[in-house]
């Protein structure tokens, strides 16, 4: 027999686990200054909820209930410590939990602050994306380790070390100073970007876990945009991810093979996501502080015009890339710029020329460079060199679907 409250209780706990986990953790970690201990206390509180709610019904203020239980767990854990400071914090936690119960206003959202701690320069940049996914969304290590090309044990170890460093070095959970905020926020966006594109790379491999990671990264971007609705780059960043998301279904065809952007069926793109992305981008533009993420979003948005007009607006895209490389000449932007200029002018060799002017140190192991070079040389009918570049691109590709795609391209130019 199903207990009367059981189904409702499980649904509430699941919903809270996604929506409130990060909120509660950010709140506890900021006050306790020990992320790992806060995580333990909170997961015990969730376990207690699954035990109690089906029997006794979901409490009126589930977040306050969880907070009270987590506080008790922290109090148990701190018993040995006997540090006065700890007891002051515990007393404040109790007051706060009572405030949440008595007032109608929901708990403040401190998740961005937690992300800013994760992006502290003293934390190794390569562990930041996984750290944010784990702390803010409760993503399990085994769900993400393969995307980060690490074993579950290795990723666990790195995360444990990062959390220990946050605790031992006494990192501040307060908002960074004005001067530090911009670079820290940039580091946060970079980490979310890495989480998204690791998820995307993996997605064509066809594993659910990678697909999942991508959605989690978008969720993080939404949390940041909600916390900073007047930051044009944050809005541009979310817009960029949504444009990429809108094309997710078209990246793989019915037989599971990779389809590059220019060959995708625009009818398969998700038009409601595209609309949200356009709206965000125009909100960002209205703030009149342009930046690289807004430009990248605008480029992806321009590619989406094809869904309406049937044609890629290459002149606009080349113009946007021009602005992007003037601001931030990353290797990816330079490659995109060369391809766009080639298409806009109808002169493939112009693109080849721009690619050849790039620093060989940067391009030697950059797969998109060799794929673009091979593609443009093919258009210019220099088949021999095109083949050589495409073979180099294949060597640098990890995903089997993309390898197979490039092999098909080589066959068509022979």
């Amino acid at each position, binding site marked *: 027999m199903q207990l009367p409250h059981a189904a409702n209780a499980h649904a509430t706990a699941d919903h809270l686990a996604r929506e409130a986990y990060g909120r509660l953790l950010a709140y506890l970690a900021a006050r306790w200054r020990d992320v790992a201990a806060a995580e333990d206390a909170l997961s015990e509180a969730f376990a207690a909820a699954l035990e109690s709610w089906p029997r006794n019904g979901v409490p009126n203020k589930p977040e306050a209930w969880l907070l009270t239980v987590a506080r008790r767990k922290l109090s148990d854990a701190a018993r040995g410590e006997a540090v006065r400071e700890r007891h002051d914090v515990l007393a404040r936690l109790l007051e706060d939990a009572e405030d949440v119960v008595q007032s109608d206003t929901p708990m403040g959202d401190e998740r961005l602050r937690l992300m800013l701690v994760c992006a*502290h320069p*003293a934390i190794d940049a390569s562990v930041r994306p996984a750290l944010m996914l784990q702390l803010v969304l409760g993503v399990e290590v085994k769900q993400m380790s393969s995307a980060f090309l690490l074993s579950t044990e290795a990723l666990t170890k790195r995360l444990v070390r990062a959390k220990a460093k946050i605790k*031992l*070095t*006494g*990192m*501040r959970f307060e908002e*960074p100073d004005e001067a*530090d905020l911009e670079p820290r926020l940039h580091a946060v966006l970079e980490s979310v970007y890495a989480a998204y594109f690791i998820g995307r790379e993996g997605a064509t491999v066809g594993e659910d876990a990678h697909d999942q990671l991508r959605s989690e990264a978008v969720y993080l971007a939404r949390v940041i945009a909600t916390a900073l609705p007047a930051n044009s780059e944050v809005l541009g960043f979310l817009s960029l991810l949504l444009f990429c998301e809108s094309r997710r279904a078209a990246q793989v065809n019915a037989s599971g093979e990779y389809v590059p952007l220019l060959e995708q069926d625009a009818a398969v793109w998700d038009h409601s996501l595209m609309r949200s992305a356009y709206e965000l981008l125009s909100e960002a533009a209205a703030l009149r502080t342009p930046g690289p993420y807004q430009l990248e979003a605008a480029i992806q948005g321009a590619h989406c015009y094809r869904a309406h007009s049937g044609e890629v607006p290459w002149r606009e895209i080349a113009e946007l890339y021009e602005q992007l490389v003037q601001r931030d000449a990353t290797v990816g932007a330079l490659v995109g710029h060369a391809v766009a200029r080639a298409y806009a002018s109808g002169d493939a060799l112009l693109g080849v020329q721009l690619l050849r002017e790039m620093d060989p140190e940067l391009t030697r192991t950059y797969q998109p460079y060799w794929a673009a070079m091979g593609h443009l040389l093919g258009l210019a009918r220099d088949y021999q060199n095109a083949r050589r570049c495409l073979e180099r691109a294949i060597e640098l590709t990890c995903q089997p679907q993309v390898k197979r795609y490039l092999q098909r391209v080589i066959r068509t130019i022979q």
Partner: protein
Amino acid sequence: MEYMIMFNQPAAELERTPDDAESAGYWESWRAYMSDVYAAGIVRAGNALQPPYSATTVRVRDGKRQVQDGPFAETKEMIGGYLIINVPSLDDALEWAARAPSSVTGSTEIRPVVSRG
């Protein structure tokens, strides 16, 4: 919180003597830095160290003592001194470490001190 900040300096700097005219600027930069740190009232302890050639390293292996002349590893940068400071957070410690002359010519390492009690 207490942090140890360690000044890692290029070997040549550690050979400088106080009365050498060429080194006047060098000593002045340290003097200015130290007077600022002490004036901030955050210093718990600290010392400059004699140059690395004065170091002796000891290891005990299979119960036998092995004594060796010099620091345990020959590196381009060696510790020239340290401070123990008490500041609220890592960011504050980083702020002080970045101002040390060794951060420009070598590097400065920050480690939290294990608290007792």
